[in-house]
Every structure is written in C-alpha cells, then in structure tokens.
C-alpha cells in the first residue's frame, strides 16, 4: 500500500510543478539525450519556448527559424489534431508572426516543413506581434504560434504563458534583435518562458572525399528549463527531413552510437 502511495505522490508533485506538461503532454525531440534532459521527455505543449541566436544570427534569426521549423514538422502528428483532408500534413495552421517578410518557403520545405501550413502575419512593432501571438494562442484550430520578437517583457511572457496553458497551443518565441546593442541589453533579461534555448552555428565538417560544405551543425544550448537542468549538445541537421541528430564529440570519428557524455565541455564556448 505504502509502496503504491509514493509514486502516486511523486506524480502529484510532478503535476503541481509542471502543470502545462502534465495537462497538454509533451513533444519529444526524438533525440534521446535531449528528451532525457527535459521534464516529461520533451518540449511541453501549451507553453512558451524561447529560441535565441548567437553572434550575427541574433539579428537574422536564420538558425532559430530552422530550429523552430524542425520542431513544427513533428508537431503535426499530435493525437488531438489528426490530419484532415485539404490541410496538408495536418495539425492545423501554424501562425508565424514576423516583422520582415524574409521567411522563405523553399527553405522551410528543405527542412521538411510544408509552407502551406503556415499563415504569416507581418507587423512592424513588437507590441503588435505580441498581440498577434496572444490572439493565436487563444484560438482553436491553431497548431502552434511562432513570434519573432525583439523585446519580450516579463509581463508579456507571463500573459503568453497563461494563454498557452489555457488553450494547449504551443508558442515559440524567436528572439530577433535589431542590433548588437539591443541583443546585449535583452539577452540576459528574465522572462516566463518554460524553456529558453540558444542555437549557434558551428563550422561544418566536410563529408569525406567531397569538397565544399558539409551538413549544417548547430550547438544547441538549453539555457533554462522549468523543472530541468541546463545542458548543451552539438547537433547535425539532416536536410530534407529536418530531423536532428546528435553528433559524436570528435569531428573525425565515424558515425557510431552517441555517447552519454555528449554534453560539450566548456572549451567549445565561443565569445559573441
């Protein structure tokens, strides 16, 4: 009896600690090492997740968009939103709110995300984008909302988190700073996002016996996670599917089983 009680209590505490993940379920990455680091085994649905770039990408937001696209591909296969006829790969529309019309359809398709699923909303000011994201989070029939934001105040992030928790719609906030000064100012400010990530480009490793560029490599850092620990991985992106895979720590090592200590040592950290 008492042996049964303990797991039950643990489960109850878990629910209290992470109501969003418990209510709306999670979205697994499909990469065991990452899923292990996240409470519930994946990104919580019905929550706000923040992705920021690094270096020059803080302004351009290419890697963050790619990372979000890779996640949105997998978001479609949710039991609550099965594919419907005439709606592409299913899962309802994805509302993508952005300040500049520079998101490129063929680039998304290359990552496996059907651009037909997207509804793009263009607004110049951060306040308008925040409003659009919140409207999206409040409505049925939306699979996820993506917002590209420069300024993301704590109060606004809490509002989004509440709206997402209520509706179960997942929000991805891509930080896109106007310039280096704004990036330096905003980067460290706290907000209420359930997880905060930083994606940085890494020099690619050329495929053997082929000149030119290899597969894109990202360093994915989990900076903050409610109910989890910060962590860092190095990933390789497979084109055309958008699926991420963990790479072995050493570049010249053949593809083998990934190691438990895939978390990179500090020397990989790069300034700015």
């Amino acid at each position, binding site marked *: 009896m008492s042996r049964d009680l303990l797991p039950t209590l643990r489960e109850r505490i878990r629910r209290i600690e992470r109501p969003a993940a418990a209510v709306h379920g999670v979205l697994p990455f499909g990469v065991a090492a990452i899923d292990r680091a996240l409470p519930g085994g994946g990104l919580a649905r019905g929550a706000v997740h923040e992705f920021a770039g690094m*270096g*020059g*990408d803080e302004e*351009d*937001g*290419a*890697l963050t*968009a*790619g*990372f979000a*696209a890779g996640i949105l591909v997998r978001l479609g296969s949710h039991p609550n939103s099965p594919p*419907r006829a005439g709606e592409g790969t299913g899962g*309802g*529309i994805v*509302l993508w709110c952005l300040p500049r*019309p*520079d*998101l*490129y*359809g*063929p*680039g*998304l*398709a*290359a*990552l*496996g*995300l*059907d*651009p*037909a699923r*997207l*509804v*793009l*909303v*263009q*607004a110049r000011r951060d306040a*308008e984008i925040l*409003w*659009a994201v919140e*409207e*999206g989070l409040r*409505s*049925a*029939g*939306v699979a996820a909302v993506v917002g590209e934001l420069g300024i993301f105040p704590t109060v606004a992030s809490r509002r989004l988190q509440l709206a997402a928790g209520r509706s179960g719609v997942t929000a991805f906030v891509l930080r896109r700073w106007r310039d280096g000064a704004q990036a330096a100012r905003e980067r460290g400010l706290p907000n209420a996002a359930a997880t905060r990530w930083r994606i*940085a*480009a*890494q*020099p*690619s490793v050329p495929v053997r016996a082929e000149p*030119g*560029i*290899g597969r*894109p490599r990202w360093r994915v850092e989990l900076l903050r996670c409610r109910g989890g620990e910060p962590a860092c991985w190095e990933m390789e*992106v497979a*084109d*055309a*599917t958008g699926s991420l895979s963990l790479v072995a720590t050493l570049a010249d090592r053949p593809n083998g089983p990934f190691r438990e200590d895939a978390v990179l040592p500090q020397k990989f950290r*790069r300034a700015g």
Partner: protein
Amino acid sequence: MPSCRKNSAALAEEAPFATVIEAAGRRLLAAVNPAASAAGLAPGMPLADALSFLPGLATAAAEPAEDRAALRRLAEWCGRYSPWMAPDGADGVRVEITGSAHLWGGEAALTADLMSRLDRQGIASRIAIADTLGAAWALARFAQTGERIVIQPPGDARDGLAGLPVEALRLDPATVQGLRRVGLKQVGDLYAMPRPALVRRFGEAVARRLDQALDDLPEPLSPLGETPVRRVRLSFAEPIADPADLALAAERLAKDLVLRLAREGMGARRLDLAFHRIDGQVERIVLGTARPSRDPHHLAALLKERLDTVDPGLGVEDMILAAFAVEPLPPEQIGFAGSPGTGTMAGTASLLDRLGNRLGLDALYRLEPCESHIPERASVHIAFPLPSRAGGEGRVRGAVSRRDPGPRSPAALASAKPPRPIRLFEPPEPVEAFWLLPDDPPFRFTWRRRPHRVMRADGPERIAEEWWRSEGSGAVDAIRDYYRVEDEEGRRFWLFRAGLSDGSQPPHWFIHGIFA
C-alpha cells in the same frame, strides 16, 4: 419618391455677407446671405458692382472644394433616411425614399424630422418630395408657396410644375434665355408645344428634362458609394457616446443583421457600421471577413475590437450596420463542439479576421510554391482572404504572374532542388567581396559592416533571367552565379555574383539569403 433639398450658404442673419470667387480674372459673388440678398445682391454679380450697392458688405473667399466635401458629408449623413442618396449639383442632396418613408411614419413625418435636424445643425434648407427627381429638384428651388417643405401628391407632377419658371427644368442658361425670348416663361407653356419643333429649336435637352420631370422618362439615381445588400438601423431617443453603450448597440445590430442573413441563407463578407453623430458627421467602421459569416458573437467581437477608432463626438443618434458583400452560407449548426472540422475552421477564420482587421489584410499572407528557378519567384506571397473557392481571390504580391504549380509534396520539392536558404532578402543586399580568380567564390566579404571570412564554399549555381519575361531583361543581374559559403562561425550565406565576369566591368556581389 425623391426628395430634394436646397441649402443656401446663408450664415449670419444680421449683416450682409457674401463669399467671393475668382473667375476669368474677375471677382464674382459666389453666395450671399439673406441680408445681402434683400439688398439686391445675387450670386454671379461682380464684386465691384456689389460693393457699389452695399459698401459695408463683408466678404470671404469661397472654398468650392470644401463646400463639395461638406455637401458630400451631408449626403452621407442623409444615409440615415435611405441608402440611396447622392449630392446633387453644388447645393442639393437627393435621396430616394421610396419604400423607406413608412419607417419614419410617412413622408410628412420624415421631412419634419429632416428639417428639424438640419435646423439644429444650422443648415438653411428647403425640402421637396415628388414623383421624380426632376420635379423634386424644381419644387425645392422654385416653388412659390413660401413653405419650406413641399410635398407633391403622387401623380400630380404635371399640374404642380406648370406654374414654375422654365429654369426649374435644370437647363443651361442659354437655353433658358432662348425659351424666355420666345415667350415660353413657365414650364406649363411647354406642355402644349409640339415636341419636334421644340427639339429642333432648343435642342433635345429641353424635351429630355421635361420628360424626366413628368416621369415620362426614367432617371436613375446613382447613389453615393455602394448600395448595401442588407441594412439594419438603430436610432436612439437620446444621443449616446459611452463606449459601453456603443458596444451594446453594435451587438444588437449584429444580432439583427444575422437574423435577416440567416433567413436568406447568406453570410456577410464585408460590413460597414456607420455612426451618425448629432453634429452631422458620420464615423465608420469597415470590416472584412475571411469567410462568409453570420455568427453574431464573431461579428460583434470584430466590431467591438474597432470601436476605439470611433470618435462619438457629442453623441451618436443613429447607427446603421450594412452588409455590402454577402455570399451563400448554408444553414449550419454553429458552435457545436462535436461537429467535425467546422469548429476549428471557424475558429481559424475568426482568428484571421481579427488579425486582418487590426493589422490590415495585407499583413496576412501565405507562402505559395511556384515553378520558377528565379529564387524570389519560387515562393510568392498570397494575400488573404483564402482562395477557398475555385478560381481564387488571392492577390499575388509583386509583379508575379502565377502559373499553376501543380500538387507537389514538400519532400519532392526539396529533393529536386539544390539547398535553399530559410531567410531570403528581397531585394538582395550588396556586399563588399574579395576574390582571387574570376570564377572563385569570395574568400572574404563584408555585410552590414561585419566582416566574414569564407572557410568553405559550394557553387557556383548559375541562375539566369527567364528569357520569356520582358521586364528585367538587360538588367545587371540577368545572370547570377550563386555560391553557398560558410564563414568562420559556421554561419551559411547565399551570395551571388551579378553579371558575367568578362573583364569589361568588375562584377558585383550580393547576399540573397541565410541558411539555417
């Protein structure tokens, strides 16, 4: 029956006053007030003559454009009586009240209401109701009864107009003079004249105007703006200005409109809510919806969202909600959670409506793949509303004619094409690049004042202008060589060299996109 009103540009009662307009180098009186009129002044008189009559005449420059705008506003305000209204000439408004007079308790009650409201706004007016536009025009301007309201009983046009001067027929001054010269001074004098002789002598305008006035020839009224398909009105005993009251009224109107739409199986695509203020101004909210809608909550929410843009001034006395575009919307159970599909689709549509009405419908678009190897044409922005029906209503942004892309899966598209960036800059941004050999990618480039060292590169991929397009041919970047380059950080850029490197001109480098 049209009603015609004449508003003279009368201002203060006491002192003689006139507005002056310059015409052909002379200064003429444009309008006079009653005091000036009593002293013998009339519009069209040279200012010098007028001043010799009345040295103390106060004048001001006439503003015909302002007058026209004011008349237009007045005509719009008259939309509270009927949607069929238009400014008439420089000093009148015509309103088609057939079928709407009974809503006001008859023609007499309507004119009394109109007159009292105009008086309150300080607009001197004469109102006439008659069978035809021509007759109403004539009576409003030339009736000698001394009454300010003339209502001609139906079928009475012939006798009613007989005693009026021929000017009442809306003829040009030369024709009027010609008629007067041969002794045809009154409209009644023309009745007996043989038509062919009249036309031969004075032109067909006389016969046409006479027929129009006597209802022998139809004269359509082209209303100001569009005529709504369905319209509901709410009048208040006391003017309201409180936002909460306005919101309540908007809700009621939406409900009323929906009832009528539901009866006909229609849904609204475009709505216009007009607020008639007591000072004669009209404020408007214009809405569009992505799908035909007759959900009262949805429509009311859309209207309320925009209420803060409305300035109620001293108060609003009428609100008119009009549906301009309606489309068949089969009866359905709205808002039943169990109905498959429709629930979320309706939810999405209402979300898009809210976004579009706040940020502008231009702000919403979809990415549509397009068969073109020119990067900026391979994906076009299709603006909402969703082209759900055959043919599609989507506007294509930019000078792109869309050819049928055909159904292709994203995976097929991806595998068939070389890698494409996730962000594309339109237009491409120039970069400062350094390279060694003519066909080499740059080894170093500066973009947005940030230097990048190229560590690895793929390419070139040559993309030439589509030769069948006339526009853009001969441009510098008619032929582009694209390179995918990676800098020391590992970021990947899509650079291209514009123009052939034949040595005659140094090539220019541009950045077109960034890869994820």
